[in-house]
C-alpha cells in the first residue's frame, strides 16, 4: 500500500483522518472521491494483502501447527499484525484486580486495523435499536432513527458486498431488492441447528456477511453509488471489477488476497488512493488533537514511531476513527491532558461490548459422516436473529434486550490442536484412535450468544494517572461491570443452547446452569468495543451530535464506534461504516458551502 513519510506531507490538508479501519476507511473513501484532500494517520505499519495473506497454508506450514500463542492470540494465520490483547510498548491498566471487572482491549497496529481479521458479519441495526430508551426506559436513544441511516446501510452493502437473505423478521431489517449477494448454502451444522431449533421456536436463517458470493457488478453499482461523479464511478467500477468472488476456501480471518471479503485495505483504501486525494502516513501514533484559540481543531500531534519524534500535521477538519478506546484516549490526552470535546464530562463514559456466552455441543447423529468439503465462506452461513421480542415486551424474560446466535460447525481444517476434544479418545491408541477421531470429527457444533449490553455507569475508561506508554503518553485505565440484564441473558442463552443440542439428540458439553458470571465472556472479549463518546440530541448529555461532530468542536468528528448510543446485538461494523458515510456526506456538503 503506497504511503508517505512526514517529510512528504503537504503543509495543510482538508481533513486529517486518524485510523484506517472501518470508520477511517469509509471516511477516506467518501471524502476523497468527492475531491477532498485527506491525510490518514495509521499507528501501525503498512500491509500488503496480496503478498502477506497466508491463503492456503496448512498446519504443516506454521509453527505449532498454527495454534494460538501469546504472540498470535487467534492463531498464527490470523491477519492481525502487531496486535492482540497486548501490544508491546502500549500497556493499559485495570481499576480492579477482579477478572469480571476488567476489560480486555484488542488492538491491531496495522493498515486497515481490525477489519483485516474481523468476522465480516454485517447486520443492520433495526428500528428498535435506535430508540431503546423509548422502548424500555433503559440506556439512551440515538438522535437518529433507522430511516435516517437506511440509505447509508444500502450504500455500504453495495460497496463492500454483503451476502444474505431478506426474511421480513421483526427488527431484523431487509435490504432493498437486489442489494444483497446470494447467501451460500447451509452447511451440515447450520442445517442441523435450523431443523432442531425449530422445535424450540428458534428461527435459523442465512446471516449477512461481507463476502462476495458472485463477482461484483461495478458497471451497475458504481453509478448508483456516485451519481453525477464520472471520475468516482470509473475508479469504483475498476476497484469492484478487480475483486474476485469467494472460492470457498481459507478462513476470512486470515485476510483475503483475492479481495472476496471486505477489509479496509482491499475495499476502502485502494479507490481512495486512486483519486490522488489521499496520503497515508503509517507508524503515526497520535497523541492529541491540536485545538486553536478559536476553539476549532487545527490538526494533530503524533509520534513518528520510526524516529520517535513529535510531528504536527494541519487540517481544516479532524476525524478520529482510532477505535472507541483509542479515540477516547486521544480526546482525554488533548489540551495537554485537560481533555477536549468534554464539556459534558462524558468522554470515556458508557463503554459497551457485546454479551458473549457460548456452548459447544456434541451430536451423535453427526458422527462418522461421509467426508465432504465444509469450508464454505470462511465464516458463518446461518444465524438466529433475536426471536423473543413479544415475550420480552410482555415481561416474560428477566433481561431487557436481545441476542442472536451464531452457528459454527467443526468440520474445519485441523491446525495444531487435536481436531476432537482429547477426552473423546482417552485411553485409545493405534487404529482405534484413528477410528475414534474419524467418528467424532465434525460431530460438534458451536453456538455463540451475541447480545446487547445496556450502557452502565460502571463501564468506562479514563487516563491512568501514573502509567505511560513508551512515548510518555498516559494510557487507558478500564472499569467494567455487567448488570443483571447481561448475566440473565447469558443464563438464558446457556439454557437455550442446551435445549437445542438435546432437541438434536445431542448434548452441550458445559453445564447450562453454571454461574452466569463464569459463562459470560469477559468485557471486551467479543471485540465489539463501542461507546465512550455517545451521540445524542442534547449537548449537555452527549459528546457528539447526529453527524458524529463533537458538540464542542464542530470540525472534530468521531467516526468509529465511540458515538454509539447503544450496542444492539447486531455486530457494529456495518453501522460504523454507515454512520461514517453519512457524516462524510455532511462534511462534503459543508465544504461546498465553504464552511470547512
Amino acid at each position, binding site marked *: 500500500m503506497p504511503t508517505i513519510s512526514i517529510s512528504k506531507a503537504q503543509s495543510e490538508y482538508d481533513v486529517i483522518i486518524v485510523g484506517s479501519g472501518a470508520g477511517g476507511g469509509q471516511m477516506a473513501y467518501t471524502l476523497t472521491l468527492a475531491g477532498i484532500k485527506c491525510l490518514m494517520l495509521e499507528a501501525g505499519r503498512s500491509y500488503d494483502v496480496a503478498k502477506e495473506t*497466508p491463503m492456503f497454508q496448512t498446519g504443516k506450514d506454521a509453527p505449532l*501447527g498454527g495454534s494460538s*500463542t501469546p504472540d498470535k492470540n487467534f492463531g498464527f494465520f490470523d491477519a492481525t499484525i502487531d496486535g492482540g490483547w497486548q501490544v508491546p510498548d502500549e500497556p493499559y491498566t485495570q481499576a480492579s484486580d477482579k477478572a469480571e471487572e476488567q476489560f480486555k482491549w484488542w488492538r491491531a497496529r496495522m493498515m486497515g486495523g481490525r477489519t483485516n481479521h474481523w468476522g465480516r458479519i454485517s447486520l443492520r441495526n433495526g428500528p428498535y435499536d435506535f430508540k431503546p430508551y423509548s422502548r424500555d426506559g433503559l440506556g439512551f436513544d440515538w438522535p437518529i432513527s433507522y430511516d435516517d441511516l437506511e440509505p447509508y446501510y444500502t450504500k455500504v452493502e453495495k460497496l463492500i458486498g454483503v451476502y444474505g437473505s431478506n426474511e421480513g423478521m421483526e427488527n431484523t431489517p431487509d435490504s432493498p431488492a437486489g442489494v444483497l449477494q446470494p447467501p451460500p448454502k447451509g452447511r451440515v451444522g447450520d442445517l442441523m441447528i435450523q431443523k432442531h431449533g425449530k422445535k424450540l421456536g428458534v428461527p435459523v436463517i442465512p446471516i449477512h456477511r461481507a463476502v462476495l458470493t458472485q463477482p461484483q457488478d461495478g458497471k451497475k453499482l458504481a453509478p448508483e453509488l456516485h451519481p453525477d461523479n464520472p471520475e468516482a464511478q470509473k475508479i469504483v467500477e475498476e476497484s469492484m471489477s478487480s475483486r474476485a468472488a469467494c472460492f470457498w476456501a481459507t478462513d476470512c480471518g486470515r485476510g483475503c488476497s483475492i479481495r472476496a471479503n471486505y477489509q479496509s485495505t482491499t475495499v476502502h483504501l485502494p479507490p481512495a488512493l486512486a483519486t490522488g486525494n489521499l496520503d497515508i502516513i503509517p507508524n503515526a501514533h497520535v497523541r492529541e488533537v491540536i485545538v486553536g484559540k478559536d476553539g476549532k481543531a487545527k490538526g494533530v500531534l503524533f509520534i513518528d514511531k520510526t524516529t520517535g519524534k513529535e510531528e504536527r500535521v494541519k487540517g481544516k477538519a479532524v476525524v478520529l476513527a482510532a477505535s472507541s478506546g483509542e479515540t477516547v484516549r486521544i480526546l482525554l490526552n488533548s489540551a495537554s491532558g485537560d481533555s477536549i470535546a468534554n464539556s459534558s464530562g462524558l468522554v470515556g463514559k458508557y463503554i459497551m461490548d457485546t454479551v458473549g456466552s457460548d456452548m459447544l455441543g456434541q451430536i451423535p447423529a453427526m458422527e462418522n459422516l461421509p467426508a465432504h468439503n465444509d469450508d464454505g465462506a470462511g465464516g458463518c452461513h446461518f444465524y438466529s436473529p433475536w426471536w423473543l421480542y413479544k415475550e420480552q415486551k410482555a415481561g416474560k424474560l428477566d433481561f431487557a434486550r436481545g441476542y442472536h446466535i451464531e452457528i459454527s460447525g467443526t468440520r474445519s481444517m485441523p491446525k495444531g*490442536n487435536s481436531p476432537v*476434544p482429547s477426552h473423546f479418545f482417552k485411553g485409545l491408541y493405534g487404529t482405534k484412535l484413528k477410528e475414534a477421531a474419524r467418528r467424532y470429527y465434525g460431530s460438534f457444533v458451536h453456538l455463540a450468544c451475541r447480545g446487547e449490553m445496556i450502557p452502565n455507569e460502571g463501564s468506562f475508561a479514563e487516563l491512568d494517572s501514573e502509567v505511560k506508554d513508551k512515548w510518555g503518553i498516559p494510557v487507558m485505565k478500564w472499569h467494567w461491570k455487567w448488570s443483571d440484564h447481561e448475566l440473565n441473558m447469558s443464563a438464558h442463552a446457556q439454557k437455550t443452547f442446551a435445549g437445542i443440542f438435546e432437541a438434536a439428540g445431542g448434548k452441550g458439553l458445559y453445564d447450562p446452569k453454571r454461574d452466569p458470571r463464569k459463562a459470560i465472556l469477559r468485557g471486551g472479549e467479543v471485540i465489539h468495543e463501542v461507546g465512550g463518546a455517545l451521540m445524542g440530541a442534547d449537548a449537555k448529555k452527549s459528546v457528539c451530535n447526529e453527524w458524529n461532530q463533537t458538540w464542542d468542536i464542530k470540525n472534530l468528528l468521531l467516526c468509529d464506534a465511540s458515538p454509539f448510543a447503544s450496542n444492539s446485538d447486531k455486530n457494529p461494523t456495518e453501522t460504523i461504516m454507515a454512520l461514517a458515510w453519512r457524516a462524510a456526506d455532511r462534511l462534503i456538503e459543508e465544504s461546498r458551502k465553504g464552511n470547512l
Partner: protein
Amino acid sequence: MPLIGSSKNHGKETFNMNAQDQENRLPRRRVLQWFAAVAAAEGIALPAALAQTTKPGSTGYGQDPVMAKSYERGEVWPLTFTKVEKTAALALADMIFPKDDMGPAASEVRVADFIDEWVSAPYPRQQGDRKAIIPGLKVLDEDCRKRFQKNFVELNEPQKKAACDEMAKGNHFFHVFTALAAGAYYSDPRCWKALGYAGNIPVGGAFPGPPKEVLDQLGLVQTVL
C-alpha cells in the same frame, strides 16, 4: 470455548481441548472468543521463571511473523529434545499413529518433530506441556527397563503394545502426548483423509453445500437454493 468463560471451570486440560475445537472453526467471532480464552488462560506475558526453563531460544516469533510461507520445525526456535528423548518420542508416536489403511505413520509426517517444537516453544501453554512430556519420556524408558530390561524403542511389537496398554489406563503423560500427537498428525494434509476433512481447495461457482448422502443420513433438507 469461550466457552472459554465456561471452560475455565473445568481445568486447563478441558480448556485446551475446547480451545482446539474452536481453533479449527472459522467463524471469526467464536474463534476469536476461543482464542481469547486460550490467551487468557495462558497469560499474556511470558513469566521469566518459565522462560528460564526452556534451555535454548526463549523468544517467540513475535507479533509480526511472515505468515505466507512454510516453516520448518525448529526454524523459529531451536528444538530441544535430546537424542534419547527424540528416539522415544518417535517410537511412541508410531504406536499411537501407526501406518494402516487409514493413513501414514506418525514418523512419515514428522509428529515427533512437531512435539519437539511444541515443548521447546517459549510460551506458557507449551511450557506446561513440556513439564509432562520430558519427564514422561524418561519415565517411559525407565519403566520399560524395569519390565523388559530395554528402552521403549528396543521393545518388540507385543512389548510396546503391553507398555501402551498399561499407560492407556490413565497415565497423564500418555494422554498429553496423545493429544499433542493428534494435533501434529492431523495438521498434515496427508492425514486429512483419515479424519474426513476435505477442504482447503478452491471451488468455482456457488458453494455446493453438503452432498445429498450427508443430508439424507441426517434427514436434512437444503434450505438455501
